[in-house]
């Protein structure tokens, strides 16, 4: 097992077979075994499980390689830094919590300056509530976006209210005049039925999806849809399977953040809060840059655990906070990875009474760089000791990550309690979140959160704006 000065404990190997390791002792594993998790292996009380590694562990000997105990990835493109809350735990027959921060990033050589051509659809809310300054700012933002797109990009524009109209069929952006004309001619009137617009937008993107690596729908709305939410979510799931992603920009205070969050999550995209309509242009530009320059796409993560470890929860913490609904062994689609880092936190409950070096998780991280399929497989290990382990310093970066998700989770729980009618608990949770934010130095957001807690206490209802400020403010807290 490799352990560096930061107390990071990890073992990396480049390929994994389908055998079994009956004792997760890394010293024994290095003896010609490529290793894999045997979920059925359970330690017998007081006895060490036999150290025998079955070999060969894969039907294809060419695939199996010896373990790399140096901690370096043999894959050329991806790397992963792992930080644990403790590298040693007391071996005991009762559960204890362990946190793992996993930071995936591309090796410098893999980060290409090339921008991927985009196949884009804009689904624009043109309901009555958008009239006036809102549609004005939005049109200006869409024209700016059009200016920023490049030859090779495709764009379509769909206007929707209580029905959908294709204002501009999918066209190469070299036909700028036609697209700009369609944007300028957007008018408002009617209700809000997102489903019609979404389906129309997806239809436009799907026509040319095979020719592009980046197929994306952006939904822009200031309101709420009624009765078609489930249909929209089903469309988003289908689109994601086809590698067509969907993101949402909610403008102002009145849109349904729970629904748009779910839509973006199911659609493999992101939901953003445009609190100031004059900032729409800026946010759209940021969003497009992230998609177009993302060198790694079709990112998927899977986790496997032994019987004595359980995944309590998993979160993406960078570039934004998101709860991950991971199911053990099943790939979880995470969309694209831009040139920055994808940071994940796993909260695990482990119960291991036998001393020794144990692997508590196996991660598989996969994606595509251009035409190349890449993957990284990583074991996470911990040492169980018979005596109390030496206390160590909690790594600052892990603490920062867990502190952020702590606040994120407190405010999410507050809104859930409010949905159930428990105003007192919701207010208390927001107060707790405010205190944590204050301790983190996030004064503005702390004040906003405390104000919302007080408003709940006195009025029983939150402000729409405050709720969104807190939800999206905590989601995008920077990892220090």
């Amino acid at each position, binding site marked *: 097992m490799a352990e560096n000065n930061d107390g990071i404990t990890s073992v990396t190997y480049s390929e994994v077979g389908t055998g079994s390791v009956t004792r997760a002792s890394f010293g024994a594993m290095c003896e010609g075994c490529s290793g894999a998790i045997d979920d059925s292996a359970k330690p017998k*009380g*007081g006895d060490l499980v036999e150290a025998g590694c079955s070999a060969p562990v894969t039907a294809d000997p060419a695939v199996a390689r010896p373990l790399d105990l140096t901690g370096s990835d043999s894959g050329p493109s991806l790397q992963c830094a792992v930080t644990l*809350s*403790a590298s040693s*735990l*007391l*071996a*005991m*027959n*009762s*559960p*204890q*919590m*362990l*946190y793992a921060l996993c930071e995936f990033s591309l090796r410098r050589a893999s980060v290409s300056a090339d921008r991927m051509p985009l196949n884009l659809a804009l689904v624009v809310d043109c309901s009555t509530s958008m009239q006036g300054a809102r549609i004005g700012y939005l049109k200006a933002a869409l024209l700016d976006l059009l200016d920023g797109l490049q030859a090779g990009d495709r764009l379509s524009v769909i206007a929707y209210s209580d029905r959908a109209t294709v204002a501009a069929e999918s066209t190469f952006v070299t036909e700028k005049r036609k697209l700009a004309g369609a944007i300028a001619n957007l008018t408002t009137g009617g209700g809000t039925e997102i489903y019609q617009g979404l389906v129309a937008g997806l239809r436009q993107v799907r026509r040319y999806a095979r020719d592009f690596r980046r197929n994306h729908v952006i939904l822009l709305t200031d309101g709420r849809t009624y009765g078609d939410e489930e249909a929209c979510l089903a469309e988003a799931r289908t689109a994601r399977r086809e590698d067509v992603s969907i993101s949402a920009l909610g403008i102002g205070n009145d849109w349904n953040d729970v629904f748009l969050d779910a839509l973006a999550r199911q659609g493999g995209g992101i939901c953003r809060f445009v609190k100031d309509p004059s900032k729409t242009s800026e946010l759209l530009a940021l969003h497009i840059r992230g998609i177009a320059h993302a060198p790694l796409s079709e990112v998927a993560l899977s986790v496997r655990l032994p019987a004595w470890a359980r995944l309590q929860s998993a979160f993406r913490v960078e570039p934004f906070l998101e709860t991950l609904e991971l199911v053990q062994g099943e790939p979880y689609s995470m969309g694209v990875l831009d040139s920055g880092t994808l940071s994940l936190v796993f909260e695990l*409950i482990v119960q291991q*009474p*036998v*001393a020794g070096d144990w692997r508590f998780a196996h991660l598989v991280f996969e994606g595509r760089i251009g035409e190349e399929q890449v993957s990284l497989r990583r074991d996470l290990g911990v040492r169980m000791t*018979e005596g109390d382990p030496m206390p160590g310093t*909690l790594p600052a970066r892990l*603490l920062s990550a*867990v*502190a952020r998700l*702590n*606040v994120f*989770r*407190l405010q999410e729980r507050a809104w859930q309690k409010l949905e159930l009618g428990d105003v007192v608990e919701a207010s*208390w*949770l927001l107060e*707790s*979140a*405010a*205190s*944590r934010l*204050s*301790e983190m*130095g996030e*004064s503005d957001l*702390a*004040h906003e959160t*405390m104000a919302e807690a007080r408003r709940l206490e006195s009025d029983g209802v939150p402000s729409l704006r405050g709720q969104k400020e807190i939800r999206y403010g905590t989601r995008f807290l920077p990892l220090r």
Partner: protein
Amino acid sequence: MMEKSGSIVCPSCQYVNLPGTLFCLRCGTYLPSGGPLRTEPFEEQQLERAARYGPDLAELDARTTGIEVEVLETNRKVLLSADSEILVGRLDAAHGVFPELDLTSDGGLEQGISRRHARMYAHEGKWYIEDLDSTNGTFINDELLASYVPMIFSDGDVLTLGSLRLRVKVYCGESSLR
């Protein structure tokens, strides 16, 4: 192998957390140490010590029942009863510091508030404030208090703890409180 529970009871809400938990799963309190601990001292300032107030400077009704404290930086107002001593500072659950007037959410850490910064209490119709050897001091209307020397404050006075200013309004009779 040892059989050991090692559960962590949250000092804030008493929720029982598993060993190794960093933040209480119920209330989010930081369990290893209760949050930021250190109060950074401001740079040295030369200030006159406050003179003791004589009894003729504080004419308060013997029926004084409470005070309203307004945090001037945040406009937050808190009503406090005279029934018991009021600890003023920053919450630190892990070390059992639970101030009645918790200034954490008012930017307490940045404004130089110590966890146990000062205490206030009413005695024989008068209100006192006593600095508890805080890092950045306590002032009544810009006059620095000596540590552990209670000083009387009056209705309308501005108390400065660290760099956080609190205006106090003293209530008499039936008008309070927490």
